[in-house]
């Protein structure tokens, strides 16, 4: 199913997460994966899919990586490929790792807050 929301193109096969939700958290997830290990676009998209977030298109992923780079959270370098054109590898900067910890903590607090609200509301209904 193809969902499009403003500039966000997401095609999901098994899981269907609302594009609005993904827009809020994709950048954080991408930053997380880059902090985990040096990686490239196609591998990131595969990891996100493996993690259950659906198939993220290049048109969504690369602008996110661009913003992370502009904010100084990741660096990039082109490497020669084994067969065919080279690949752009991304790795996290120290600032990026700090930012990941900070944002992940805030995201955790955020989801706890919304969970608490929803549990209360559901209990009452």
């Amino acid at each position, binding site marked *: 199913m193809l969902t499009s929301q403003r500039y966000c193109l997401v095609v999901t096969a098994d899981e269907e997460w609302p594009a609005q939700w993904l827009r809020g958290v994709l950048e954080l997830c991408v930053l997380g994966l880059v902090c985990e290990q040096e990686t490239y676009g*196609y591998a990131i998209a595969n990891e996100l899919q493996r993690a259950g977030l659906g198939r993220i*298109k290049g*048109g969504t992923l*690369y602008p996110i990586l*661009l913003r992370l780079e502009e904010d100084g959270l990741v660096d990039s370098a082109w490497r020669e490929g084994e067969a065919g054109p*080279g690949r752009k590898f991304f790795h996290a900067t120290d600032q990026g790792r700090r930012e990941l910890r900070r944002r992940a903590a805030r995201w955790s607090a955020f989801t706890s807050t919304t969970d608490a609200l929803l549990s209360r509301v559901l209990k009452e209904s």
Partner: protein
Amino acid sequence: MTKPHPGHYADQAKAELRRLGAGKEQIRRIMADVWVQAAEAPDGDLAAVLGPAEQFAGDALAGRRPVRADYLRQLRTELHTRGVPGQRIGEVLAEVDAHVTDTREDPASAFGPPRQYAARIAEETGATPEAGSSTTRRLLTGVPVTAATLLAVEGAVGLLRDQAAPVTLAVLLAALLLPVLSQVAGPLVRRSAGLGCATALGSLVVTQIVQVVVLVWLRQPVLADLPAWVAAVTGAVVALALIVVSRPTERPAGTAPVIDPRPDAQHSGTAVWDTGKDEGPGPRGIAWGAAALWLAEIAWLTVVVLLLR
């Protein structure tokens, strides 16, 4: 038996393309598709995926296989229009190319229409088209330059005929109104290539005709009479000073070359990047060029006026 290598298939395909008379550009574009398939080919056996090299080459040349270069070219144009710097354009094009090579999708499915993706990129980089030139600034230089041009021609004619150089009302009005004309023409020139050329040419012709009419026929009323050499020197000094002052302070974003950043760029083969290091004229070159054009304009106007008066 040795394992088939994509390189062998690529060499065969290239040889066949050359034999069929394909141009360098065409060969580069077609070989890009070969590399797309190379990732998918089991054991690197491209023949299993694409068929015999000779047949593939023939099909590709006849346009029976898709080429992704068109998407990249459109994307490049859209990015340029939105003021994205040349270096960033090179990066974006290489990213798209490398990504669709890995995913084996077509670029429009993966990245959306070129215009949409270019808008997204421009938004992220904060690029603004035509940054740094304002209407007021252009009019402020346009009016004195036009006045200086007309004055210099009057001075030149006066020197050659040993006469005084009159400053007429018509000259003053032309100096005020002609820059407005080029202001109006500006957006039209940027709209499209065809309309742009027509507008630029039309604007140039109109400007020259108006200047000739003003200098040859609209010679009354006279506001002041100047010695010819004063008019000539003042005109030249003012015009050249303004040309120097209004030159861009650095290379405009649009003239930076779009280079493929990948280390093995010769394999990319889609030929939408710039080759070589030619970066176009810098600020000095632009100033010299503008000065030369201005002198040419003075020369031609002087000749016409001498002939027609």
